[in-house]
């Protein structure tokens, strides 16, 4: 294994590109902040903070999805991830960074008393409203801040422990007893992350952060929907990095077989996303109760109609038809294309989930959205690249490495 290129060096071009994107994003952010964020017009403020909100949440969640991928594959004792596991690890190092940005944005919205975003912040309105009064135990600033702090802090901490444990597989060969212990410790740590992940992304956090914009409306499906949306985009992000590193001549041990499995995740979870999309939509369509259909009214019949169905085509029809074939999932070009498309599609999904509720009358998609997106793409490239260069790309002495190398689909 001496001939493997395990040390990633960040190419100058990558740095230039990421700095350029970050610069572009910061310019859009500053311009937006002065023209919209601090404007006296409520509408402009909502536009600005809403845009920041869905972007920060989206990027935090898709980076966190990497750690969830590591956790579930570890719990399932899957061996195939070992040859490229340092990539999801590197992506998950972004959780504290993007999490802090999300935290700052959410805190500003809550303490800046942006009740046009979170209607439940308006104490007078809540007192006069029996429905909101009933939800006050969950939707109040104190709980919001405590739960958000705990969520982001524990995601970061539990993820850091999992990454730290895997560093031991770099140190030196393990005998049988040590490797069994190593696997067991990994199982315990990833199980802890998975439980916390389920209690947050799998249930409470999307309700708290995003669904509470429509304070009267609720859907128990919403959190699962958000989770799958972020997970399938997160898998696409892993696929992009795997392909990038393969192109640069790294990851010699990762092959089409591994790409095929990542492609299967992208395909299967796109279908699962559609399943939840439809389950949420169909029940509400069928019952046709005004307090439930309020969420879909302007999305299916109003200004957001185009985006809403575009969303379905990009995130369901395209993966279904394009990724179905075995040869497509093993084709680097096609997987790259689909990964970019899926990430973009789910970014649009988050856009309509948040902005569709904040600005019902018109679609605001424009320079601000793409500017902030550029900032996050740039930051993601920069930080993931740096994180990758800090550790060997393969944990050489991991007990499952051989299984991964000979993996065959």
């Amino acid at each position, binding site marked *: 294994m001496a001939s493997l290129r395990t040390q990633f060096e960040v190419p100058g071009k990558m740095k230039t590109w990421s700095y350029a994107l970050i610069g572009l994003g910061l310019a859009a952010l500053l311009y937006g902040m002065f023209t919209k964020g601090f404007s006296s017009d409520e509408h402009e403020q909502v536009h600005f903070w809403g845009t920041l909100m869905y972007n920060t949440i989206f990027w935090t969640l898709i980076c966190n999805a990497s750690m969830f991928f590591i956790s579930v594959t570890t719990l399932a004792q899957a061996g195939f991830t070992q040859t490229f596991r340092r990539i999801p690890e590197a992506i998950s190092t972004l959780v504290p960074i993007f999490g802090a940005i999300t935290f700052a944005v959410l805190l500003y919205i809550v303490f800046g008393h942006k009740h046009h975003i979170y209607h439940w912040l308006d104490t007078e309105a809540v007192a006069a409203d029996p429905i909101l009064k009933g939800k006050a135990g969950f939707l109040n600033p104190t709980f919001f801040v405590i739960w958000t702090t705990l969520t982001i802090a524990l995601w970061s901490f539990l993820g850091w422990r999992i990454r730290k444990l895997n560093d031991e597989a770099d140190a030196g060969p393990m005998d049988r007893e040590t490797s069994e212990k190593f696997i067991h410790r990994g199982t315990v740590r990833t199980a802890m992350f998975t439980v916390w992940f389920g209690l947050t992304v799998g249930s409470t956090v999307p309700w708290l952060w995003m669904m509470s914009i429509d304070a009267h409306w609720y859907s128990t499906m919403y959190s699962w929907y958000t989770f799958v949306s972020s997970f399938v985009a997160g898998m696409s992000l892993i696929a992009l990095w795997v392909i990038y590193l393969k192109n640069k001549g790294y990851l010699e041990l990762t092959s089409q077989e591994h790409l095929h499995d990542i492609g299967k995740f992208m395909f299967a979870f796109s279908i699962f996303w559609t399943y939840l999309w*439809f389950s949420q*939509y*169909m029940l509400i*369509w*069928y019952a*046709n109760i005004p307090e439930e259909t309020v969420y879909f009214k302007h999305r299916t019949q109003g200004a957001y109609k185009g985006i809403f169905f575009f969303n379905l085509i990009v995130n369901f029809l395209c993966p279904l038809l394009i990724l*179905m074939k*075995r040869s497509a999932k093993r084709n680097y070009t096609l997987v790259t294309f689909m990964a970019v498309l899926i990430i973009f599609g789910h970014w649009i999904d988050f856009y309509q989930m948040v902005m569709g509720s904040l600005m019902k009358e018109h679609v605001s998609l424009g320079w601000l959205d793409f500017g902030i997106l550029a900032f996050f793409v740039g930051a993601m490239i920069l930080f993931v690249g740096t994180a990758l260069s800090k550790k060997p790309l393969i944990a050489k002495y991991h007990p499952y490495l051989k299984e991964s190398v000979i993996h*065959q689909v």
Partner: protein
Amino acid sequence: MAKKKFVVGCFDDEAVLFPAVKKVRTAGYKIHDVYTPFAVHGLDHAMGLRETSLHTAGFIYGITGTATALSSISWIFTKDWPLNIGGKPHFALPAWIPIMFELTVLFAAVGMVLTFCYLCQLAPFVKKHHFHARATDDLFVMVIECTDKTNTDDLQAFLTSNGALETKVEVAEDGWWLGRYDKDEMPFEEKQIVAA
């Protein structure tokens, strides 16, 4: 089905089987099949089998299911017997999607199982020749189809030199035929030559 002549070689190790398969193929013999006690990864590649078309068949069955559901429900609810259900439009697509989905799955699943059984020549009341009963236990059994020109003695010697523990020549049906194992013949009651 016509009877054909086969040369059978038995191996007890994957590591011996793989190079033997490769050598037999490069020597120009036609491998009828390799019977193994469990699924052996990569053996299909070594034997040069083409990728299965079962999934293409599955896709076609699925599409047929979707089309069947959509066309029948839309005909029933818009033309044949329109009903007002909760004020919904007659063409109520969202309500039909679960049924379309179920029929897609049903057609694809049943169709693929039947196709799979047909391809593997498996069915109730149908028999296939067993070249070696221990293929279901602990031996890898390679069956080579003979032509008029095949020298079976040479081929048997060739297999033995490539690690076959036991070789034999058999004239047998290569396909399936109607019959019952429990009535006619017990394949496991054949006298077995124990491999040395």
